[in-house]
């Protein structure tokens, strides 16, 4: 187990380092001058040069990257003009565009995205695995066809349509719910829940179709395996067969997929965040890419990368729990 954790940790550091190098490289190849963008389109070349110097962009790329790494390990100081802003380790730098510390930018948005992703995952797993199981057990019957049609319909509609329809129905027409606004969990759990309900439902409706299909096919596959047949022959009840034996095996691919989905959700729930006005990481990423705000982009990619790697490690562990044939190395 220790070896497993250690290997994973080293792997994670390597992946994150590689990611940051790639982003730095892409950034310098891509068009767009961050100094010009921070200064404004009407800035004179001389003024842009001043801003470039202020942002440290006139240094060679490798030095900029070295400062970036140094900031993560030891922290960095930035001038505010009137004083010095100390950015504590792990410092991901300050935004070119706003001068905000990247770590605080991320820290203030992470809870939003985490709330969205985790809540939606609970819902989509319940919905997806539930309908998948039902479809597998009621194979070929009306229930299966109805469920399959419904989940596929959910998957086929983009989130900005489903979301907008839900808003129109529940907030505008019926007025059962207020238009969602994000309130932190610690501020008011109740408002947090109501504010996120529609975003969760929208995401879950879309994601659950995948899980339903996966659960269904994987369940059918497992049910057809030899050991299940043997159990059945020994007279194990159908209920125990499904819940105790088949489900366990059938869930392994579901676990793997949820880990991936959860990880990527941290940077890619942009449309949902935009539609529901949630100040999350995805929205920040899209905006920062548009204004060539390198420190923020690198910071966000690292955080998303971290989430994906972590989620995968978690999935591997759960794998071993679910399927005893798997050994962690």
């Amino acid at each position: 187990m220790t070896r497993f954790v250690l290997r994973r940790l080293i792997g994670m550091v390597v992946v994150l380092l590689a990611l940051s190098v790639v982003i730095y490289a892409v950034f310098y190849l891509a068009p767009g001058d961050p100094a010009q963008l921070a200064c404004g389109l009407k800035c004179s070349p001389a003024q842009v040069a001043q801003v470039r110097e202020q942002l440290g962009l006139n240094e060679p790329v490798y030095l900029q990257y070295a400062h970036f790494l140094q900031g993560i390990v030891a922290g960095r100081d930035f001038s505010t003009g009137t004083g010095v802003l100390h950015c504590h380790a792990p410092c991901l730098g300050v935004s070119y565009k706003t001068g905000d510390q990247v770590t605080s930018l991320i820290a203030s948005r992470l809870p939003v995205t985490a709330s969205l992703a985790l809540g939606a995952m609970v819902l989509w797993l319940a919905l997806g695995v539930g309908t998948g199981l039902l479809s597998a057990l009621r194979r070929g019957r009306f229930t299966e066809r109805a469920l399959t049609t419904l989940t596929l319909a959910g998957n086929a509609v983009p989130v900005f349509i489903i979301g907008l329809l839900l808003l129109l129905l529940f907030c505008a027409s019926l007025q059962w719910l207020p238009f969602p606004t994000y309130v932190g969990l610690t501020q008011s759990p109740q408002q947090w829940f109501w504010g996120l309900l529609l975003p969760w439902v929208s995401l879950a409706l879309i994601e659950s179709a995948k899980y339903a299909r996966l659960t269904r096919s994987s369940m059918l596959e497992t049910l057809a395996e030899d050991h299940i047949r043997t159990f059945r022959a020994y007279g194990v009840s159908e209920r125990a067969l499904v819940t105790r034996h088949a489900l366990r095996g059938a869930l392994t691919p579901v676990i793997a997929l949820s880990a991936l989905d959860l990880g990527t959700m941290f940077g890619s729930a942009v449309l949902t965040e935009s539609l529901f006005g949630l100040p999350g990481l995805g929205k920040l990423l899209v905006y920062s890419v548009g204004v060539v705000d390198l420190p923020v982009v690198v910071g966000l990619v690292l955080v998303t990368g971290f989430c994906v790697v972590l989620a995968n490690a978690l999935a591997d562990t759960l794998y071993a729990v679910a399927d005893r044939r798997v050994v962690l190395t």
Partner: protein
Amino acid sequence: MSRTPRISRRAAAAAVTVALAGGAAACGPTSGDAGADATPHKGGTLTVLNQAPQDNFDPARQYTTGGGDIPGLVFRTLTTRERANGAEGTKVVPDLATDTGEPSKNATVWTYHLKSGLKFQDGTAITSADIKYGIERSFAPELSGGPPYFRDWLVGAENYQGPYKDKHGLDSIETPNASTIVFHLTKPEGDFPYLATMTQFSPVPKAKDTGATYYLHPVSSGPYEVTENQNNGTHLVFKRNPYWSAATDSQRKAYPDTIDVQAGLDPAVINQRLETSSGTDADAVTTDTNLGPAELAKINGDKELKSRVGTGHFGETYYLAFNPKVKPFDDIKVREAISYAVNRTSVVNAAGGSSLAEPATTFLPDQATFGYTPYDWFPAGATGNPAKAKELLKEAGYPHGLTITLASSTSDASYQGPAIATAVQDGLKAAGITVRINQIQDDSYSSTVDSVKTEPGVFLGSWGADWPSGGPFLAPIFDGRQIVTDGSNFNNAQLNDAQVNATIDKINAVTDHAEAAKEWGALDKQLGQRALTVPLFHPVYERLYGKNIRNVVISDWDGRVDVADVAVK
């Protein structure tokens, strides 16, 4: 002047950037709350639902027209725009100063006196030194983002790096006593009172300046102070500044006790919330979100909703811009042929229809304050004049038609995308001109078309006003000395005509706005003959507001519902 495309019209419209909102005609509110008790009262909470966050809430970093709407709640300036409907609202009026400025004989020295009894939110008196410091710090590279005029206009300011690096300050801003401030300019500028409406002319107490982090707690001189700022302007809460006195401020009515700005919202959701007007949304307005064509169609069928739409105009023109350095656009006959061939009806339809865009034949917006002088040198009528265009093409040596490439953005959000480009394409087809459309990625569109190195032969351009005057509209586009070869260049035709340059200088020295306007109009008419642009349309802004909103004021300066004047009770 500002180019509106880049970030998208929506983002640009946010108060930070130059105002976008819409402009001409004597509009103002379509008066929704004509009920018995329409008198505005103090109190309540006004909600503002916006797309773009009010980021970097520092007076040095804001690029506003007339001081902006939300910034104007906190940052008072030497002069400001008159809060009045329609054309009346394009006037400059005194704010912190006693008048709009005393010019020297040649308009190179401008003197202002402060009103007495002006105070910051902490009760200390506002002095002329605070205003000088406010302008000086806008030069600091740490606080970039403001407009470019200070560097161009103030003596010795070209390479000034702000008070953090250069403690001495600018000698061209004098403060002979605590209530007097004098500006020395490099050239005559009759429009100085308009510039003095920008937030850089807002006082900043040196002792409270925290540089790059000042935006979190800016010191208020206006009726409200910032009490909450989350995620850099995504959620802002403003409460009353106890030291602001209505006696010194004739413009801001400041009815609500609290103003709650929620940004980062989706435009469809903003309009849906305003339409539903439930709960606090009944007390809501937006400063950056227009109604789209579909939403308008629905609203027009509903009397109650229609009564809650404010129509506004902001001086802005969308046009085809030619680069005469690229063949065949070096030939004026070809440019004229395209001017004749263009079908403005399909272009207006592509922009959302006649309620959201008005066809344009002049470069200047059709408002008196810009000096609007009607002309139509190459009359294309409503749908184009292909016969005349073909004739001109024949004269130019293209009897069998012509193939050209039109550059557009990939996004329709800024009216410079595929929708408008294909509408132009259709019109020109009838005249035998085949148009290929070259779509340029939206986020690099302006940097491509506004660089002399990469500028295409013809592209979809736009220009909006930094203040409602002909100067900032015509000079950057047609003044030969404003051609920038190693940065953003807005003189896209690279016109450098001694006579035009001299005329611009002459009008800049005129301090009587009406007189200057007349001359700008004449210059526009004269420039139009050169067919360097094909004006297409001026946008119109249609914006919904909540059920309880009263005292709606929409000026032609920025075309938006004025948040400083609106009441919720």
